[in-house]
């Protein structure tokens, strides 16, 4: 079996075609491939729908076949009633004539069913045979034909049992089951379709004359300029080249509040332009843009086969030969004891009940639905394997900066030395900070801009940057000006005035301190506060309720780590070098699978070390990092949500597998001993697959915990987003999840 080499997708539901027992994989040219005969049926219906008047032939077939099958059943029951009543009731001539007549009627009425429902199955079998693979459909068809042929001979000879009702009802149940199953599969990929339906099919492209013409989105190329009106979703990635607007990026970043975009800002496909008439220079289009990449990622994720599925695959692989063997042996055995007809029926029952549909569907259906639901909830799993791993984690490590805290620190306070005035110092600090893009400098700059009225930075100095320590500049008047860490001050030999040192003692240890030195003494200190994410405490609380051990790992100062750890109520480990982080995680992982949650920027090695890496806020660039789980938004609450979804998924997979195994083994036993009528076997087969499919589809209704993205490009999402901004960041998974579900 070499499914990994060339993956083929069903032409209807888009799910991968499951491996069959095949001795050659090349696809006969031009054939649309379907993963099951149900999909083939549904596809032909949809085809007929689009051709409208040429009769929805498959529904037709099914309908007419059911009509005839009901007739066959009534005739058969009439024949059977001979066994029910005492033989005396059948002594009249009329009874004998009717008896013979009903046998012929059963034959005549079952012919159309055989043709109508047998043909689509036969087509599938033929296609498979040309691919040189053997399917269970082939065996079913064989059994049905045998039952039919035997009964026809009986009718012609005028004696012997007839089994038209078996052939007919088996065909009806198998077709009906496949049909419903295919509908179910279609729904498994529905969530993805809903997302991709958000991409507009057309776009207004600027032509040579400078006007805009509407063209298919597929024709848009890089560097084209397109126009997007208010209320429309963007079909491409691009740079804003005219206009400005509020853009709702919830679908890509998960941020529920719209963000203001102006000239030169990058914008992403699938996001909603709320209020601006925009022109966009295309940077990526037609399958290469953000939303399509997200969707492609989810589709790819379906291919990886987790352990459970590999197990099922192995079983399915051995199933067919084994089933053939059991069918032949039991048919021979039953046939030798009770006649050829019993042999045929036994073999048919065995084949039907053993059909590994349910087993083959058990894992992929659950995972596919779950992956789609996760994507709707703003969580991308790289593969089904990751779902399985995430479900089994026992603990989680969090990075600090950018994960538990909002990435940017804010300067909350400026402490000037006793002899200095802030009015004098702040512009100096602002000017030197303006020369660096480091986070601390930016925080200082923002502080100065906020506290000195009508101040603009000047570039009076050439600023030298010392990585990891700070920035330096030379002023003709004051001499050297420096902004940086305590270490930089020590290196420069700048003393900290006693009064300042005293006040720093009392200041919160959790603050990052940025010193400003003018000349050779420290003139003041900025105290930088990191902001815990609003939802962090609630999210960690939920994690703890899930039974996870939590830890904070950071390269930052131990004091600050401890302060954040205390605020969130988790153990903290500070001053860790990247390799120490990795070692620490491995130590923790000895007691159970660990997940590492980071923003994917400065903690890549740690994320790579853990079994399950979770990256935060990677919506704008899903292919950026190697994390197995991507949270599109910066919302930490998505993590416990993902864990719950994963656990729920695994539970559903286990239920499915248990059911499929139990049903198949019990059924085969009954069938092989001739205790199961093929009609019941066919019904059981259809019901079993349906159970597995519906059980899996329950995952598609897993509470999202956030508002769904509305498909139409209306202003509605914006209003909803405003609402969600006011929602208290408590245990949203229970309360808000339910409301969102009810609202959907």
């Amino acid at each position, binding site marked *: 079996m070499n499914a990994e080499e060339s993956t083929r997708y069903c032409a209807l539901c888009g799910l991968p075609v499951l491996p069959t027992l095949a001795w050659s994989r090349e696809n006969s040219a031009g054939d649309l491939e379907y993963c099951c005969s149900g999909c083939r049926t549904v596809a032909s219906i949809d085809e007929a729908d689009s051709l409208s008047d040429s009769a929805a032939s498959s529904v037709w077939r099914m*309908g007419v076949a059911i009509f005839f099958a009901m*007739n066959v059943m009534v005739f058969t029951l009439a024949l059977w*009633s001979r066994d029910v009543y005492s033989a005396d009731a059948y002594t009249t001539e009329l*009874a004998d004539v009717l008896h013979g007549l009903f046998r012929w009627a059963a034959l005549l009425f079952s012919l159309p069913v055989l043709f109508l429902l047998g043909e689509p199955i036969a087509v599938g079998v033929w296609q498979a045979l040309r691919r040189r693979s053997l399917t269970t459909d082939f065996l079913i068809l064989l059994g049905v034909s045998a039952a039919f042929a035997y009964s026809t001979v009986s009718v012609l000879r005028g004696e012997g049992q007839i089994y038209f009702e078996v052939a007919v009802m088996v065909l009806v149940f198998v077709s009906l089951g496949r049909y419903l199953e295919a509908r179910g599969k279609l729904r498994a990929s529905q969530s993805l379709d809903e997302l991709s339906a958000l991409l507009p099919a057309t776009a207004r492209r600027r032509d040579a004359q400078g006007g805009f013409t509407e063209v298919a989105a597929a024709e848009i190329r890089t560097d084209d300029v397109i126009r997007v009106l208010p209320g429309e979703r963007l079909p491409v990635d691009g740079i804003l080249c005219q206009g400005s607007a509020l853009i709702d990026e919830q679908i890509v970043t998960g941020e529920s509040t719209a963000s203001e975009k102006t000239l030169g800002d990058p914008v992403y496909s699938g996001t909603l332009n709320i209020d601006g008439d925009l022109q966009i220079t295309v940077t990526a289009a037609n399958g290469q843009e953000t939303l399509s990449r997200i969707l492609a990622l989810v589709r790819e994720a379906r291919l990886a086969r987790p352990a459970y599925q590999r197990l099922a695959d192995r079983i399915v692989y051995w199933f067919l030969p084994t089933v053939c063997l059991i069918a032949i042996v039991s048919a021979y055995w039953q046939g030798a004891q009770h006649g050829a007809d019993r042999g045929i029926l036994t073999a048919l029952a065995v084949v039907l009940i053993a059909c590994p549909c349910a087993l083959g569907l058990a894992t992929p259906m659950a995972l596919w639905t779950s992956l789609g639901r996760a994507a709707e909830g703003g969580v991308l799993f790289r593969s089904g394997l990751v779902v399985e791993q995430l479900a089994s984690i026992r603990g989680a490590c969090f990075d600090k900066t950018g994960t538990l805290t909002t990435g940017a620190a804010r300067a909350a306070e400026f402490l000037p030395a006793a002899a200095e005035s802030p009015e004098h110092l702040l512009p100096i600090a602002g000017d030197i900070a303006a020369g660096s893009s480091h986070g601390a400098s930016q925080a200082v700059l923002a502080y100065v801009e906020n506290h000195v009225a009508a101040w603009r930075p000047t570039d009076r100095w050439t600023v030298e940057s010392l990585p990891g320590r700070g920035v330096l500049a030379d002023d003709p008047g004051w001499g050297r000006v420096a902004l940086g860490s305590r270490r930089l001050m020590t290196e420069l030999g700048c003393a900290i005035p006693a009064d300042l040192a005293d006040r720093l003692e009392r200041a919160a240890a959790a603050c990052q301190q940025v010193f400003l030195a003018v000349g050779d003494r420290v003139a003041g200190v900025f105290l930088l506060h990191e902001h815990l994410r609003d939802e962090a405490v609630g999210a960690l609380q939920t994690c703890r309720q899930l039974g996870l051990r939590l830890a904070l790992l950071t390269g930052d100062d131990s004091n600050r780590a401890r302060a954040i750890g205390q605020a969130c109520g988790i153990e903290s480990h500070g001053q860790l070098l990247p390799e120490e982080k990795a070692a620490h995680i491995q130590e923790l992982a000895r007691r159970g699978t660990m997940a590492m949650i980071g923003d994917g920027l400065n903690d890549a090695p740690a994320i790579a070390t853990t079994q399950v890496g979770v990256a935060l806020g990677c919506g704008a660039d899903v292919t950026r990092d190697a994390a197995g789980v991507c949270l599109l938004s910066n919302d930490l609450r998505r993590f416990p949500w993902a864990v719950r979804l994963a656990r729920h998924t695994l539970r559903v997979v286990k239920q499915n597998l248990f059911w499929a195994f139990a049903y198949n083994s019990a059924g085969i036993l009954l069938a092989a001993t001739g205790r199961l009528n093929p009609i019941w076997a066919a019904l059981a087969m259809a019901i079993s697959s349906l159970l597995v499919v519906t059980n899996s589809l329950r995952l598609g209704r897993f509470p999202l915990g956030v508002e769904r993205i509305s498909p139409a490009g209306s202003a509605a999402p914006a209003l909803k987003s405003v609402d969600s901004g006011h929602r208290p960041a408590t245990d949203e998974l229970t309360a808000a999840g339910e409301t969102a579900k009810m609202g959907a």
Partner: protein
Amino acid sequence: MIELPLIFVGGLLGSAHCIGMCGPLAIALSSAGPERLLRRQLVFSLGRLFTYASCGAMAGFGGAWISASSRTFVLSQAWLALLAGVVLVLMGLATAGLLPRPALQFFGAASCGAAGWMKTFLNSPSWTGVLLAGVFTGFIPCGLVYAFLLKAGSSGGIWQGWLTMAAFGLGTVPLMVAVGYGGRLFSVAGRARLFRIAAWCIVLTGAISIARGASQLNTPVDEAAEACPFCASDVESP
């Protein structure tokens, strides 16, 4: 089968209750001329009739089979008749408004789902489509149909079951055709009056069934299942 006329009337008047559910389907049968529409309506009803009768036959067989296989220890047919009678009486009383009607909401929702699915058949210009629409309409969950199916099951034979349900189905034809053909034929008050008459017909059918079951319980065992499915079609079980 002395109840056959009663069952027919029960279907005829009781179908006032079906209008809520099956009526929209009948109305959905689109057509050009009024004459053609009438024929389409008849074919549609024929489809329903077919389903009812087939199900009746199956129920009859099931009932006969149960009584045959349990002949020696239980009088299944009598008990089935009792059960069907009780259900019919309850249904009748509920229709008359003397008992609350549960589960109606659920059935309503089910028929809505079916209506969308059956569009293909209903909109088809061909006779087959209309017939099939009727056939599948016959499967729409309906308390009245189930009550009469129980009755069919207690009738003791495949042919009697077939007849029971055919009579019931035939009874539903006129009103359904009228609804599909001309929309509202009766005022709301008139419908309510019909409803009440139908309800008492159903109660009466149920009462007869109960009486029959009770009398069977008092007769010797071996007379319980005597009817022949082919030749003794109209022979009444004692």
